[in-house]
């Protein structure tokens, strides 16, 4: 702070501090606070807002448990469609994270330890170029590629691999398209933290492990993965949170039997105009995700500081 004052003088420092505070307070904290407060109030016609019916309760949150039976292999569970979508959203976000990790680990290792610096520049460019295209267009591209009788099916048919066109987005309980789309959209958020973590590993350590008799997988298991853990954690948290919160990809690449929890929130807010209910669901999702992520971090013994690295 003193450094700032010395460098820019009082008026400029004051302005910068004021603008930052204004932005934080009026554009971040207060809107969130307002949404948080309204999530506890019922959705009422405009006349009743502020009236005797406008009381705080947990009703908006509890609707997710509203009784509706769900049948599965002849068993009946007290399961609402919202809760089911909620669980599937978390589950497939995890799967997206795992698939991204499995794809990125060898790639990051290749980039950090194998490829020559000259090749790396080209390689990085090839990886980043698709990111210059908007997320919407990229999701549409996959929508076209995966379409029934789309290019993928046609190519495979012409090659004689498959006889009939396939509905690519209908697999995995209707979530295969979403899984592909989300993995494609957020994979770089996994790749770069991993790559960063691996470049900071001294190559001598890999060689030392090898020299002491370790097989390649032992070197990875005991030396490279433990070193990369902060990168793995950071990438996983980012991909998971982005996947859970994504709405574009699940809307475009869903199937008749799939839905994403963000879509439920969207419907409540914009189709039913129930902002209170939508806010409640949004906070519910946030809360569960925070618990889930901190729980996973505990389990894998990664600190927040590691992720910040």
């Amino acid at each position, binding site marked *: 702070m003193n450094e700032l004052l010395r460098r820019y003088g009082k008026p400029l420092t004051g302005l910068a501090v004021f603008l930052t505070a204004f932005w934080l307070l009026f554009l971040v904290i207060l809107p969130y606070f307002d949404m948080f407060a309204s999530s506890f109030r019922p959705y009422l016609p405009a006349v009743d807002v502020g009236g005797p019916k406008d009381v705080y309760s947990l009703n908006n949150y509890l609707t997710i448990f509203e009784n509706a039976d769900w049948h599965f292999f002849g068993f009946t569970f007290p399961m609402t469609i919202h809760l089911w979508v909620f669980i599937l959203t978390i589950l497939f976000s995890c799967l997206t994270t795992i698939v991204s990790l499995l794809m990125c680990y060898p790639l990051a290792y290749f980039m950090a330890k194998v490829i020559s610096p000259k090749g790396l520049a080209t390689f990085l460019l090839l990886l980043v170029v698709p990111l210059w295209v908007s997320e919407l267009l990229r999701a549409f591209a996959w929508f076209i590629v995966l379409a029934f009788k789309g290019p993928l099916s046609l190519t495979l048919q012409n090659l004689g691999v498959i006889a009939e066109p396939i509905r690519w987005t209908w697999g995995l309980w209707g979530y295969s398209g979403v899984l592909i789309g989300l993995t494609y959209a957020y994979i770089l958020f996994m790749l770069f933290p991993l790559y960063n973590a691996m470049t900071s590993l001294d190559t001598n*350590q890999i*060689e*030392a*492990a090898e*020299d*002491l*008799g370790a097989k390649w997988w032992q070197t990875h298991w*005991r030396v490279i993965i*433990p070193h990369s853990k902060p990168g793995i954690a950071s990438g996983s948290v980012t991909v998971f949170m982005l996947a859970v919160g994504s709405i574009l990809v699940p809307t475009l690449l869903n199937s008749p039997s799939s839905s994403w929890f963000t879509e439920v929130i969207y419907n409540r807010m914009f189709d039913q105009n129930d902002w209170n209910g939508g806010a409640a669901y949004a906070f519910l999702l946030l809360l569960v995700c925070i618990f889930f992520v901190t729980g996973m971090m505990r389990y894998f013994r990664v600190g927040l500081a590691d992720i910040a690295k």
Partner: protein
Amino acid sequence: MTASVELRGVSMDFDKYRAVDNVSVKIEPGEFFSFLGPSGCGKTTILRMVSGFIEPTQGQVLIGGQDMRGIGPNKRPTAMIFQNLALFPLMTVWENIAFGLEVRGADKAARRAKAEQLLDLVELQGVAERLPAQLSGGQRQRVAIARALAVEPKLMLLDEPLSALDLKLRQHMRAELRAIQKRTNVTFIYITHDQGEALAMSDRVAVMSRGQIQQVDVPQKIYNTPTNGFVASFVGENNKFSGTLTSVSKAEGKFKTDVGSFSVTLGEGVSRESKCRLYVRPEHVEFTLKPKTGFNSVPITVEDVSFEGNFAVVHMRDKAARRLLAEVRNDPARPPPAVGSATNIVFAPDKALVLLDSEATAYAEKE
């Protein structure tokens, strides 16, 4: 527990650059062998070829008489100590030491026992549960040695492992390494650019330059009878005179320079026609006011005297403005000549070596 190493006509090319050029040498079992040379001379490349991280472009590497081509570093009976030690920072000291056993599937109790035993061997007790970052430089050094010894290698490869330590510790670790080598009788190959280290520790030394071995011999011979100009000027200090041989008889001759003609001893392979130079060690130079019979004499002016404690280094110039050095043992009764004084240096013909210029000499001078 110990093995010989033989390099047969080994060369290594990186693209168009030849890092190691047709090197042949045989290292005996249980020997402490050093490769000594300036940076970029190919000594580390040799070590990496022996350990198996790279395969030679040409030639053979044999360990214990067995050709090592195609055998990976994890299958060779070698253990390497890296320049930066490369301890695993996330493992405790004992896990580090026992890593080689862990990957071979030894159970935990056996691993722990072996680690403790090795910690005793390197005289480092009570740190088994610590992380490498919690140790001092010298302690980390010992852990690295213990970790390498844990896999019971027949051959230890050391890549300038002492270069990161301060002077006192370095000198202590020299003696320590030597003692551990004698105790375990494992063949040691030691890489260094520090001639003091190489001479003090090794049974034999190979002096390298530009990918080639210039001389392989015991330390005394390397220092006292270098085979060419490069070895003479890289190992220790030397006064150098250019000139021509005017007469040759057996191993002696006359060498004519711009400051006089000297009686000299001829080095290996020197003949009347060869391109060569005269080398005189600073410690073989004496000061006298009058020329001494049977000695070569050069008039000089003293420029500076630096007192080092047990000896003093006298910097001087001859008439041709050539810089010369003399080392005088500390003796209060016979102090070195005063700065600015004009006097003579004398040196015996058997201490005046005429040595061949090598390609490497020219290279070293350009540097």
